């Protein structure tokens, strides 16, 4: 593995921000740290950057321990959420700053700056000051500044969170493109599961200072390990075993067993088939039109469910419908929230 964090623990006073966390990042890999506020993801990123110190555990880059190396000697690039461009320097000076520190000749710096401005598609702004740029442009420059020094690892701390939805989507593709073309191992912190799904080769889902699940975006979406992950990775219907056994017995095939309360069925709303039928097994309670899809809340024998349908459908509120759930649509997940107060997933 290229970058390894092993058994990292970090406390702030009595608060345990990270509890024995281990993660790995491969060469050229794009890894997302995903989780709600306060789950420890930013702390982990800052530990890797060298901006915060470990209580215990170790961080290895190509097998070498980094723990004693200050941030400025790690050779990493970092992009923060916002306001990290130096306001007193022009865009070109900002991008060239890392190389200037390293004593790179001026001609080489200006060549590199031009090249990077092309890469982030802002060739005209070299002489401007950060305050003259939009938020999205500033983040592009911050990205260019971070990769100017050929960082060994690129760290992105919620780089898109402060931006408008449209700019965010654009810049998301930009980051993806830049990372793929340069092949820099990248770790991004985000609380937006859509962002993580779109960007990551690997998602590490965290909660309460521990890693809950790590895997490909498909793994986490379709095969969540726990109720928390299922809930956090988009909308899911979580139903306990007893009503499933009664109403949809063929979904019990993969049930891991046990007394019944340890696992719940996770069924994604787009995987439920829905057809209008007078003698159907459910009733439509409400419909939200979301453009490309419709989201329906239906009352069924196994409780209220969310169903999403694409394209035109003639259902209206109060109508009887028939629900069908194919066996592969159901994943049984550990109910890790059963004994905890409900999280408010934003």
């Amino acid at each position, binding site marked *: 593995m290229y970058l390894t964090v092993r058994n990292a623990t970090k406390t702030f006073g009595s608060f345990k921000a990270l509890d024995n966390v281990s993660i790995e990042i491969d060469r050229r890999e794009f890894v997302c740290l995903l989780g709600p*506020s306060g789950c420890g993801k930013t702390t982990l990123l800052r530990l890797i950057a060298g901006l915060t110190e470990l209580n215990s555990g170790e961080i290895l880059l190509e097998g070498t321990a980094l723990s004693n190396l200050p941030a400025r000697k790690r050779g990493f690039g970092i992009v923060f959420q916002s306001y990290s461009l130096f306001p007193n320097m022009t865009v070109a000076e900002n991008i060239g*700053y890392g190389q200037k520190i390293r004593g790179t000749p001026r001609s080489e710096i200006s060549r590199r700056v031009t090249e990077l401005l092309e890469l982030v598609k802002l060739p005209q702004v070299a002489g401007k000051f950060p305050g003259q740029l939009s938020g999205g442009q500033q983040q592009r420059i911050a990205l260019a500044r971070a990769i100017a020094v050929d960082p060994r690892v690129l760290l992105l701390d919620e780089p898109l969170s402060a931006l408008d939805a449209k700019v965010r989507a654009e810049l998301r593709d930009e980051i993806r493109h830049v990372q793929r073309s340069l092949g820099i191992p990248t770790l991004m912190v985000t609380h937006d599961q859509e962002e993580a799904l779109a960007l990551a080769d690997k998602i590490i889902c965290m909660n309460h200072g521990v890693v809950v699940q790590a895997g490909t975006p498909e793994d986490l979406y379709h095969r969540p390990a726990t109720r928390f992950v299922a809930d956090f990775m988009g909308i899911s219907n979580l139903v306990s075993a007893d009503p499933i056994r009664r109403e949809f017995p063929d979904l019990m095939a993969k049930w891991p067993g046990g007394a019944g309360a340890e696992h719940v069925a996770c069924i994604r709303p787009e995987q439920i088939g829905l057809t209008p039928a007078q003698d159907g097994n459910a009733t439509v309670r409400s419909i939200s039109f979301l453009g490309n899809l419709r989201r329906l809340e239906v009352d069924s024998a196994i409780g209220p469910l969310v169903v999403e349908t694409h394209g035109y459908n003639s259902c209206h509120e109060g109508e009887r419908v028939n629900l069908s759930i194919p066996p592969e649509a159901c994943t049984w997940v550990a109910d890790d929230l059963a004994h905890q107060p409900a999280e408010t997933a934003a």
Partner: protein
Amino acid sequence: MSGVEKMTTPARRQLDADRLLTLVCVGLPLLGLVLFFLYPMVIVFLRSLTVDDGYGLANYTRVLGSTGFWRATEHSLIMGAATTVLSVFLGFIIAHGLYRCAFRGKWLIRGVIVLPLLAPSLVQALGLIFLLGRNGVISRALGVEIEIYGFWGLLIANTLYALPQAVMIIGAALVLLDARVYEAAEVMGASPSRQFRDLTLPAARFGILNAAFVCFTITITDFGNAAVIGGDYSVLATEIYSQVVGQRNFNMGAVVGIMLLLPTVVSYAIERQAMKRQQVGQMAGQVPYRSSFAPVRDPVMASLSLLVCAGIVAVIGIVVYASFVTLWPYNMTLSFKHYDITLAGGYSSLWMTIVISLMAASGGTLAVFLLCLGLRRLPRSAAQPIQMLAAMPAAVPGMVLGLAYILTFNSTATPLYLLYGTAALIAIINFYHYHTQGFLTVMTGFRQLPRALEEAADSLGAGMARTAVDIIAPFIAPMLVSVFFFLFMRSMVTLSAVVFLTTPDLSVAAVTIMRLDDAGLTSQAAAFSTCVMAVVSVALLSMKGTLELMGRRNRIKRPV
């Protein structure tokens, strides 16, 4: 993100140059604070306990048993309270006028209100004497004999001196109020007077409290006005002076000094608390209040504000005018006669004061910058006590600090004696006298500096020194400029701290003015004051100009 996650602990294991630099940054200014603030304060405390045969409370019993001391204390407290009430009341009217009302000519009020800060405090007293004294313009015009020396004269002089502070502090609280809150109240049907009672007053509460304590402290610690116009109305500051200079009784002076320290320390502690409470109310993305014209309120507020300003202009203006009058009040033709200073030394003390002020300003700005820079890299547990120490000097009256210096540095017991009688020591006392204000200003600048900037520089490979020069200094440059000029201007006019440290060979401007006045050369005192005011005005304009230039450059960089 939770606040906890954003917290940073400085990398403890950076045993390289950066760590050393942090130690130097904190260590040097800290050494200065210990040597030039803490140590003299300990000395003055010990001296207050020193009696012929060792240590004891004999000095205190003597002081507490004397009627003179109790009279001075009573006078100080009454004067402090009266000045506070008057200046906070007038200050609120002016601040409310400036920030909550709509009328023209606010620039005039803003300009006039800072005038008292341009001159040594005794200039207000001088002005009052030229206006209301036996030969004053007003007394002669009305043909009445007004007894201006004493309580009333001192009250007016002190109020004029404290007023700028009151306006600035209350104004800062009023300007924080968000327009949306008022819009919401308006929509809910609250009348303007209700809005004033329910929104403005409660929000300005801590500002008013804060202003009250600052005015109180300024008043009871001021020496210049009391010395010139106090007459028989003795206060604690003049009492210390007469003990030390008049009776050469240093130990008794130290006792009175400690007694004067008590109310200022209490007052300062409460003021700091009030300030903290006020800052909680600040929030990002505030919508500034735009006042619209109110037919009754605004003309009234405007005329009251202008009336007070007229008073200030009259008092300061008459000093300038009188300095040009050939023989006040008999020959009112104008001449430059009084600018030929006849007192020994002439203008040398003015030049010396400028040199001293430049020293205090440049050295002081550098010192607080280094201190704040270093503190940012220290763990909280270590930074907090140092911050407290750095904020302490404001609680110490200038007279007490000056007395502490003479007791400490005019003793051959330590090599520090070498500093006694040098311009450097006067520059040093001026800096430490105003250390708190300078330190807190730069601290505020550092607080506004986003952590991400330093961390980005850090990740790009910049060390501490490089980050300080390339990133931090440009960011807080406006604060550094303000502190530089603040220290310069205060050093130009301060009297109380330096009055004990001047020698026949080394005097400063404010002391020269006092000597000229003492010698009955009132017109020359006015002329000398005018010169000081000219220098300070140039400094103030330079500061405004520099800040304006920086602001304009920054507006290009960050258009809002």
